[in-house]
Each structure stands twice: as structure tokens, then as C-alpha cells.
């Protein structure tokens, strides 16, 4: 029972992969390097096993697109402090296990703090309506998610709900990455869902300044592969422009209604992204008009009173920032696989399912999942296709 919205035909995928192999056949020793900046793109790539299928002449790097990975330690420490002070904290599942300078929300929950996992900000609001106590919603995520928070705040939130905003805005981070010394990124896959909100027009100034192509991509396997074909083509031709390959959801102007909501509630400020140091205009903070529901103002005393957590010494050696910027690989980091493993993560790249380090840890590096042995027995039984063939 396939939905018309699924673009997962393996046959077309095979042909798109062949197209990519054809376009990069002369680049094996000097691969074309492109970056995506979206956790969900990485999730889709990993889930469908696409990286193992990409040709060796193409390097798809994961940039700082996982909001879990870039939420800075002090922001997590704030949420943890409020939970420890006895407030009930609601959080998206993705953030639950990310350690700050000290413990994660999951850790303090094990100590007795009350932490609720919610699927949406609406659920946090429902929780607040159902009880009398203060609820703090730890609002992580990029602009797509921030729109939901904004909509809730404009729509008459419950009095006992406040928002601790760790929301971020991705376009400035792309600039930072491209300008880092040693950056090899030749083109970007832009996140399709964020672009649904912002429109693809926001990338035009970036392309004009940085002279690198941007292709807006969806999240189905065919969406990603087709966008890569378009992007590699543009890189090879040296054509810096924005191409929208996710037309069913993205237009040039985007969703004006959502944008208006977003900017009425939030404003951009500079701040630190975990591992990437300073990103000007990359953090979304609540405007003064929403002070009553801004956890940083409402619970200012509690936040000021907390004992500052010393930065975990290992964090100083963490290279997540360079890894997210595509300047280093996980194996370049001394902690990788030793002090920093999925069960005991140091940096967020190891915590998040989409973090590069986590994925490398699962794969043992760049995935090479070759399997020997014949498939003839299975083919004879007709028990489904054998898919070794030329794919490594």
C-alpha cells in the first residue's frame, strides 16, 4: 500500500546512483565534496544505506545541521538547572540524553527530577493545562520547529508554561562553514523542510557571496539522490546558483504566514553553537513582548542561583565543531571510540543518532559493507532479489 508521496522506487534510485557514478568517475582521488546541513537528511541517508551506495568520487559531508549537536552546553545546563531546582521540564526526545557541561536531562531524571518527553510543543501545553505546576518547555530545533513554538505562543499559551529557547537558524551557519580555513565544501544540499518555511530565496545572497551552488532537497531517497545529481552537475559546471529540487513543498517565497509568525515571536541574536564557536545571528530568542513566557526571564533567579558547572575537561578535546564543519573526521579525534562512545558520549555528534561520530562508530568509518558468498541458492528459490552486484 504505497502512498503517492513516497519516492522510493529502487530501480530509479539505481539509475540515479549510476548517474552520480558517471558524473564523478574522474574524481576518485579528489572527490567532489558537498555538504548537507540537516539532521533529517543524514537520517535518511543512513536509514536507506545511501552512503554505502554513493560512488567514491563523491563525498557527502554532514554539516552542522543536527540541532541536537549544535545546542551549546550552557543551554543544556540551563534546562538541567531548572529540572534540578524542581521545575517540570518538557523536552523533545532528541535532546533527552545530550550531556551539557555535566549531566543530561536523562541523568537528572534518574536522580529524581521530573522530565517529560513530548512529541510537540502542543503536548507540552496540554501538560501545562492538565496540572497547576510550572512547566518549562526546552525548545530545541531549527527554524522549522521554532515556527511551531511561535504559533503556540501567539495562540494563547497556558499561564504556567514557559519556553526555554534553544532554537537556531541555519543559514548563517552555512556561511561560517564555508569561510572556515581549509573548508573543502563545493556545494550545499539545503534542508527541504526549513526551506518550506523560509523559501529558497534566502539562499540567493549566500550563493552570490560565496559562489557555491545550493540545491534544495527533499527527504525521500529519490529526492536526495536526484538533488545530488543536480548539485554535482552544478559543481562540475562551476555554476553558482540556487536550484529547487523539492518543488512539491518549496517555493521561492516560502510560507509567508509561518515566517510572519516566527519573526513576531522570535528575534535573531548571536551566540555559540556547540563546537562551532560564535555564529552571528544564528540563535532565536523570544522577543520582550513574550517575556511572561520566557523561561530565562521568568526563572531568572533560579538560573542565577545555580552553581556554575565546570566545563568537563574532555570537552576541551572534543572536535565535534571541526567534524561538523567537514574539516576533520571522527577518527581524527583522540577521544573517538575511546572516552567518547555512544553509551558515554562527550560531544553531541556521538549522542545524536544523526551525529557524524555516532554514525561512524556504527559503521566503523566510511561504510564498506561488502558481502561475499554466492546468491545463487536464494535466486533459485526466488526468495527476493540479491542485491550485491556492483554496490559496495
Amino acid at each position, binding site marked *: 500500500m504505497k502512498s503517492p508521496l513516497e519516492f*522510493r522506487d529502487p530501480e530509479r534510485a539505481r539509475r540515479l546512483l549510476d548517474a552520480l557514478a558517471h558524473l564523478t568517475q574522474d574524481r576518485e582521488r579528489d572527490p567532489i565534496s558537498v555538504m548537507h546541513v540537516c*539532521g533529517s537528511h543524514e537520517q535518511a541517508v543512513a536509514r536507506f544505506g545511501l552512503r554505502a551506495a554513493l560512488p567514491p568520487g563523491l563525498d557527502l559531508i554532514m554539516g552542522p545541521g543536527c540541532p541536537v549537536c549544535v545546542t551549546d552546553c550552557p543551554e543544556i545546563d540551563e534546562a538541567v538547572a531548572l529540572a534540578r531546582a524542581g521545575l517540570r521540564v518538557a523536552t523533545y526526545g532528541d535532546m533527552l540524553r545530550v550531556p551539557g557541561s555535566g549531566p543530561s536531562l536523562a541523568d537528572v531524571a*534518574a*536522580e529524581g527530577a521530573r522530565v517529560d518527553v513530548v512529541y510537540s510543543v502542543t503536548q507540552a501545553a496540554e501538560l501545562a493545562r492538565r496540572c497547576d505546576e510550572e512547566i518549562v518547555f526546552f525548545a530545541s530545533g531549527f527554524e522549522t520547529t521554532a515556527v511551531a513554538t511561535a504559533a503556540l505562543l501567539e495562540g494563547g499559551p497556558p499561564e504556567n508554561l514557559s519556553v526555554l529557547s534553544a532554537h537556531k537558524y541555519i543559514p548563517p551557519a552555512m556561511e561560517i562553514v564555508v569561510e572556515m580555513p581549509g573548508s573543502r565544501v563545493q556545494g550545499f544540499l539545503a534542508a527541504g523542510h526549513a526551506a518550506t518555511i523560509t523559501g529558497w530565496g534566502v539562499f540567493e545572497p549566500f550563493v552570490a557571496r560565496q559562489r557555491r551552488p545550493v540545491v534544495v532537497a527533499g527527504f525521500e531517497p529519490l529526492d536526495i539522490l536526484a538533488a545530488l545529481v543536480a548539485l554535482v552537475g552544478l559543481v562540475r559546471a562551476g555554476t553558482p546558483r540556487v536550484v529547487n529540487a523539492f518543488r512539491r513543498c518549496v517555493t521561492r517565497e516560502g510560507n509567508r504566514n509561518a515566517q510572519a509568525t516566527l519573526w513576531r515571536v522570535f528575534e535573531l541574536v548571536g551566540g555559540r553553537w556547540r563546537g562551532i564557536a560564535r555564529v552571528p545571528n544564528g540563535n532565536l530568542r523570544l522577543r520582550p513582548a513574550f517575556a511572561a513566557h520566557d523561561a530565562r526571564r521568568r526563572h531568572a533567579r533560579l538560573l542565577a542561583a545555580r552553581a556554575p558547572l565546570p566545563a568537563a575537561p574532555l570537552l576541551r578535546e572534543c572536535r565535534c565543531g571541526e567534524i561538523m564543519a567537514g574539516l576533520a573526521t571522527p577518527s581524527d579525534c583522540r577521544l573517538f571510540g575511546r572516552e567518547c562512545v555512544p553509551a558515554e558520549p562527550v560531544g553531541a555528534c556521538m549522542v545524536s543518532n544523526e551525529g557524524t561520530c555516532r554514525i561512524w562508530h556504527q559503521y566503523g568509518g566510511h561504510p564498506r559493507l561488502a*558481502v561475499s558468498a554466492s546468491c545463487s541458492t536464494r535466486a533459485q528459490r526466488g526468495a527476493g*532479489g540479491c*542485491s550485491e552486484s556492483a554496490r559496495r
Partner: protein
Amino acid sequence: MSRRGDDGRIALRHGAGGPAMRALVSSLFARGAPRELPGGGIGLGALDDGAALRVGDRWLVFTTDGHVVDPPFFPGGDIGRLAVCGAVNDLAMMGATEVLGLSLCVMLEEGHPREQIERIQASIEAACREAETRVLCGDTKVLGRGDLDGVVLSSAAIGFVRKGRAPVRDCTLRPGDEILVSGTVGDHGMAVMARRHELACGPEEELRSDVAPLNGLVEAALAAGGESVVAMKDPTRGGVASALAEMATKSGVGILLEEEQLPVRPAVRAACELLGVDPLQVANEGKALFGVRPEQSDAVLAALHAHTLGKHARRIGRCLAEHAGSLILDTGFGRRLVQEADGELLPRIC
């Protein structure tokens, strides 16, 4: 010990069926426990689905199971049915299909409505009839309001392996062996998650737990395959991923799974997409995984198909000499490693 300074505390992931739980059990509860018992029996150290003891000319298998499920009633079953089937299925996974009986320990919270307990008891009785067994003994405790969450059940079960057969292990896979699953995956976990996250279904599609006693199905498989059925495990907490990871690691083989062969009901697939969850990591309570020598896998598959609980059985993978301990999924587009969930399954937003 945790490096982050929060040593010595139990976390939710210690109960999630994955690597953290196995580490806790082997380092704490099973420390020093022998893998093999005098007379060749299977002991605690093997961390199999149960223990096996030689009694006369037969093998007796002994297991225990605990149940805390929220909500206690869900589409397709309830905590009572879970308690019976959980224990019966642990026995079945060792090849003990003749269930002699169960014990049942019932712990209740003060204030819990008696009517609910009666419903649970009715479920227990029905499940016992299906498994052709009975509750032989039990214990009851009531704790103060707030000291326990509703109802906690703990069951133990004893059963015999059919005469002439040996208990079936989970560490005996060889390269070339084939992996069969008895039916659709992810049903139970998604039925429970759907309740928690308020997912409704259309009338054609339904998220229902698959909780069922498997001893009859396993008996059919063993009758058809005999000693060619070399390994069995039920994919409960942690799903197919955890069960196969454990079998692969213990056996020293890799396992290649074909995603296209994995039977998943459309409603389960949809719910998984919606919540960002991998069906391979979702709990099942009425399914079995079989490792079968390739020469006999057709016969075993046919026997499964002939049984009510095995209609959707499929061959989903095979064992490899390389990538020992790993599960590789062929997605139809490429390949990836299958991860075990390290803790409770959480819906993703990103």
C-alpha cells in the same frame, strides 16, 4: 562506572532489552554464574531465554518474566496476557513446548479498581487455555497508593522439551544459516506507543498488539525442522535488532537482512514513519526468530505458514562469516548497519 560523575544509578536504558541491560545483568545478577550446569544443563551465565536442567531422560526448562506496561490495557491484549505469554514464549524459545505450569506474583497499588483486576484475571485464564497450561501457584501483595504504578506482574514457568530433543540455544548460528521470522514485526510496541502518543487509525488499519503464546507454533517448526532449527529467540524489548544482535554476537557470525522481505503491517509502518522509529527496534510479544540450516528452511517455513500464528512468516536473512556480531540491512538502495536502541524508544523530531 559512568565517567560523568553520576555513577551507581540505574537508568531506564538498563531495562530496555539492549546492550545496557545485558551489561547490567552480566556484571551484576549473573556475575560468576556458570554458563553450563552439571550434567550439561544451561545456566544463568548463558543469558539465554531460560535455564535447562536434565530431569530423567528429558530436559526441563525454567524461566521467569516481569511485566510493567503502561497502559495496562491496550488494543490486542493486556498485562495479564503479557505475563502468561512472556513466560510461555521464553520456554518455547528454548524448545520447551510442553508447559507444565506457571507461578504468578501479583503486586497491586492501593486504590486500583477490582474490576480491572478481574479483567486481567480473565485474560490470564484465556491465555493459559491457548497455551494448554495453567497457573499452579502465586503470591499477592498490595502496596500503598503511589508506591507502585497500578499493577506489576511477575510470572515464572516450567516446561519440558519433547523427549529425544535437546534444548535450542541462541548461540549456535553458522555462516549460511537462514533467519526466519514467524510474522509481522513491530505490532506490540507500536500499539503501546500509539496509545501514548494519541495516534488513531482508520477502520481498515489498526495498531494491535500481537501478544500470543507461541509454544504450538514452535512445536510445529521443530517437528518439521528437527535439529536443523539451531537457534531461536523472541524479539521482545529491543525488537528484532536486539534479538539478532545478541544471537550474532554469541554465535560469532554476521547477519544480512533484506528489508524488502521484512513483514511489516502498513499501520505499523505508518506509525513508525510518523514517530521516526525503526520497526526493527520495536518490541514484539507474539513472534519468534528462527535460525535454520538452509537445507531445511523451506520445510520450516511451510510448517509456520500452516499454523494460525505463522501465516506471515518469512525468510528475512542469512548468516555470514564476515562482519561477526553485526547486523547489516540491505535496504534495496544500499546497505546500513542495524543499530540496537540503547534505551527507551523515543519519538524523533529531527
